[in-house]
């Protein structure tokens, strides 16, 4: 198949300053957990996208100096020659595919807590970071300004030496240049504060200096949050936003524009729960009115129709993408090859982001199990090693892990039977996508559904057996498969068993008519009364989602939560709008409160910290603290228990007890993946299925092969004149 001519404009080259982007697909800066210290990861992840057709590919935010040290989160760094050496691997590999490599030069000011370097951040005025919350910066005097601008210049020269084609001055997400521009941060009275021209001065001068330093070797880009969404107290697009574009346009070769700040950067990387594709357009559409230089914008662009609309209407020249490029590094090539329906569409769950927010473990992706595994495990998202045997494989359970396992095994050429009781693949995802805002998560299922349909056409012995009776041990043993994969998922606990007490809660029993598990809420068979109490011990989306759904349907909802409600949604940037939503819907919350027993209509609750604050050893059989005396009761008509999950692993365990019968039935191995092994994120469940499929012929594929680790080596010389010996200064 070939490129649909209507998408041809997306493949027209475009000039940015001294460089040419070979098409309109551009990976905007985004973190992956590689930085400068995992250069193999960095080079592999980014160059894979060059292979997949992206014309421009950036690092994550890249610190220009130890004074901007984001430690506990993970940025790239261009501090010294060692960083130059390491990042060179990325640029070299990108260049092999004819794409351009960009670096996002970053100075964070108070938002960077400098926990490793222990330097003092400097800013336009002194403020306590609303993002970091215990970091103040020093207000810059005029010498400081020149000094910090020189950091940018020196980092730009190192960037050039590392082979970067595009150097950014990064002024989005409330980092330094934007702090000068925004009166929210900048309270100065000198020539760097007050009027727009004054507030823009720092940024303009920096662009001039960096431009002069790199000359024609690099294109100059700037990333600009054209509206911080605070109203008149900060940057508004049709006020300072467009004025700044006008002022800086002569100094930049490429505008990379977005909206929002850092404390709520989910307004930029909008989760699908709240924002659709193109959600930034009402703001970014204005930029081209003023800018004479090429403009790119973001907004989870996955659909070539939408991209064409943007390019055709002149809303932007270039399609910027972070998450869509993670979910499908081959998105541009798939459009080019007329394979639009093969695109692995980003579901907007923001689990990629959660890893950066947590502090920089390697990025993961719910859709793309190979994200972050390119270098260390050698996983290519589109190419698979051919099968090494004629083993046939039965997979019981077609949820996220089972369907992914089947897909990869079939890609490898194995004959696979994927078996499920449900009429559709997707497992519990089919329920989750009915929750408010989570419909797009269904793309995870849809991708696998369409790929499996294609793969089954190629191997007629492979089969998707849906709507079947539950498999018994006997069925599995007699099925005729060489290898068995159990992917039977998990269920919510029916008895209140939870991660706080590791025990059930007396009186809670979802077989009665007033208690419901989430599955029972989905099935709709039990009547839900007016007053609903959700007992929560889960830290992700289930409780707030059910609360939102029921409150919208007119129920009075109270969440009793023994854990930080939806804590993980801080990391996926869904937290603040979820909070606003629950507030609008008058959902009541009792936090740090849990339950000790239930009876029809009443839940006995207590404050989790209601026991004594002092601790003594009082001998065996006695508690070391004063006993909790905060117990009281609240009323409900229906009680929904979101306290914990357990694996549906009985089929696996029974098969294990009949291990003696395996070989007589031709069975070489039985493995367990996904939630059936241990309940987890959909991304991790998908990963376990993918991994098993890649390693199925190993001696014991239940357990992962080791991966390549990138670690500092004692005594190795990282850069010239680096002395690795332990040396005290006396």
């Amino acid at each position: 198949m070939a490129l649909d001519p209507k998408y041809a404009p997306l493949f027209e080259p475009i000039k940015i300053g001294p460089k040419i982007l070979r098409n309109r697909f551009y990976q905007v800066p985004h973190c992956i957990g590689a930085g400068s210290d995992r250069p193999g990861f960095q080079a592999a992840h980014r160059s894979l996208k060059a292979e997949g057709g992206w014309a421009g590919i950036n690092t994550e935010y890249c610190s220009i100096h130890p004074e901007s040290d984001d430690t506990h989160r993970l940025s790239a760094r261009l501090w010294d020659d060692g960083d130059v050496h390491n990042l060179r691997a990325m640029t070299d590999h990108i260049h092999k595919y004819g794409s351009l490599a960009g670096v996002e030069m970053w100075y964070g000011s108070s938002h960077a807590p400098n926990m490793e370097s222990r330097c003092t951040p400097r800013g336009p005025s002194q403020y306590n970071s609303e993002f970091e919350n215990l970091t103040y910066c020093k207000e810059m005097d005029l010498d400081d300004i020149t000094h910090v601008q020189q950091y940018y210049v020196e980092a730009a020269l190192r960037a050039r030496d590392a082979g970067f084609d595009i150097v950014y001055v990064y002024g989005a997400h409330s980092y330094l240049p934007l702090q000068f521009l925004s009166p929210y941060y900048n309270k100065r009275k000198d020539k760097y504060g007050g009027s727009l021209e004054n507030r823009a001065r720092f940024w303009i001068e920096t662009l001039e200096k960096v431009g002069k330093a790199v000359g024609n070797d690099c294109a100059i880009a700037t990333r600009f949050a054209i509206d911080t969404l605070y109203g008149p107290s900060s940057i508004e697009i049709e006020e300072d936003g467009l004025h700044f574009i006008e002022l800086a346009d002569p100094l930049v070769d490429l505008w990379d524009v977005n909206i929002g700040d850092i404390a709520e950067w989910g307004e930029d990387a909008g989760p699908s729960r709240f924002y659709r594709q193109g959600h930034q357009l009402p703001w970014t559409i204005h930029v081209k009115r003023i800018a004479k230089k090429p403009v790119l914008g973001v907004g989870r662009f996955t659909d070539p129709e939408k991209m064409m609309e943007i390019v055709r209407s002149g809303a932007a020249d270039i399609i910027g993408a972070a998450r869509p490029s993670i979910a499908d590094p081959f998105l541009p090539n798939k459009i080019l090859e007329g394979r639009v329906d093969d695109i692995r569409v980003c579901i907007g769950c923001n689990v990629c982001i959660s890893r950066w927010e947590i502090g920089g473990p390697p990025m993961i992706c719910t859709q793309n199990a190979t994200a972050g595994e390119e270098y260390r495990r050698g996983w290519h998202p589109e190419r698979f090693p051919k099968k090494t045997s004629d083993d046939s494989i039965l997979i019981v359970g077609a949820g996220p892990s089972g369907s992914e396992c089947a897909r990869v095994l079939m890609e490898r050429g194995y004959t696979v039977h994927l078996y499920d009781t449900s009429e559709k693949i997707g497992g519990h995802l089919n329920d989750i996508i009915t929750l408010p805002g989570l419909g797009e998560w269904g793309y995870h299922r849809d991708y696998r559904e369409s790929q499996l349909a294609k793969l089954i056409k190629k191997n007629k012995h492979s089969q998707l057996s849906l709507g079947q009776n539950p498999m018994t041990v006997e069925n599995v043993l007699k099925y005729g498969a060489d290898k068995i994969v159990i992917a039977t998922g998990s269920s919510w606990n029916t008895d209140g068993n939870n991660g706080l007490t590791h025990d059930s809660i007396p009186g809670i029993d979802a077989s009665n008519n007033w208690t419901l598990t989430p599955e029972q809420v989905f099935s709709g068979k039990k009547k839900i009364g007016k007053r609903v109490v959700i007992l929560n011990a889960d830290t992700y989306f289930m409780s707030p989602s059910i609360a939102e759904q029921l409150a919208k349907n007119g129920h009075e909802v109270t969440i009793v939560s023994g854990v930080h409600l939806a804590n993980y949604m801080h990391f996926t940037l869904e937290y603040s709008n979820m909070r606003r939503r629950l507030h609008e819907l008058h959902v009541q919350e009792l936090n740090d409160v849990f339950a000790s027993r239930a009876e029809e209509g009443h839940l006995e609750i207590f404050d989790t910290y209601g026991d004594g604050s002092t601790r003594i050893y009082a001998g065996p059989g006695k508690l070391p603290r004063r006993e909790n005396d905060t117990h009281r009761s609240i009323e409900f008509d229906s009680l929904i228990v979101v306290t914990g999950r357990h694996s549906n692993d009985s089929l696996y365990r029974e098969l294990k007890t009949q291990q003696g019968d395996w070989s007589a039935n031709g069975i070489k191995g039985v493995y367990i993946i996904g939630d059936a092994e241990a309940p987890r994120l959909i991304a991790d469940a998908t990963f376990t299925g993918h991994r098993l499929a890649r390693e199925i012929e190993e001696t014991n594929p239940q357990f992962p092969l080791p991966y390549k680790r990138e670690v500092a080596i004692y005594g190795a010389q990282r850069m010239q004149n680096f002395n690795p010996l332990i040396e005290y200064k006396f």
Partner: protein
Amino acid sequence: MKILVPIKQVVTLDEDFEFTPDNRDVDHDFHIYDLNEWDDYSLEEALLIKESNDSPIEIIVCTVGNEYADESLRKCLAKGADRAIRVWSNELKNTDSIGIARIIAHIARREEPQLILTGVQSSDFAHSTTGVATAGILGWPYAAVVNRFEPDHDFTKASILRELEGGLEEAMNIDLPAVITIQVGINKPRYASLRGIKQAQSIPIEEATPDSLGMIDSEIGESGSASIIKKMFIPEKLSTAIIIEGTPAQQASKLAKIINDFKGV
């Protein structure tokens, strides 16, 4: 006792394909083969009858086609059919559904089944004639578009339900042997297990020819057919899409006008 289940390996097409130079068929390079959807149901019905009967029943699947068709026969064997017959010779190339019915009738005379279960139609040509024509040639009773089939215990009669237009159903009794054309939805076709698939690989498929079935020349191929294909082509599209342009408000009023014109308001 035997049940004969004639099946067809149908052709599906991707978006892009080409015709043969004589324009009477789609170029075989673009054929994607699959078992006719209706035949999944007629085979399942035969399997269900076999499983619910105490006396032994042999299920014979048969088809007319070259060696490519073995794949569909093996699929049936994998699900539990006992025996498979594939009839082919080069003279059979342009055989229509009447000609196919003649072949099935010959197989039936040889095998003497108590029941022939076919699909209502094939998904590629959709003639809906093979089953009823077979009955006509054999002089057997038949019932078409059957969505319930219940034989009595000694297999001399069956009570059936037929699907009629407009959601109606017709109940009737039929004497056996008979030809029944089975409608999709009558049952839930099973999937083959890997064991079934593996075992089916080693079951021999009988390769019969018109000759070996005792057919005479006037029954074979084009001579035995009632029709020949003159030409295959893609009809010209009559309706064209229009792109509605303008501001959202203009677009909305244009769209409203189109809808109203369509409704004749």
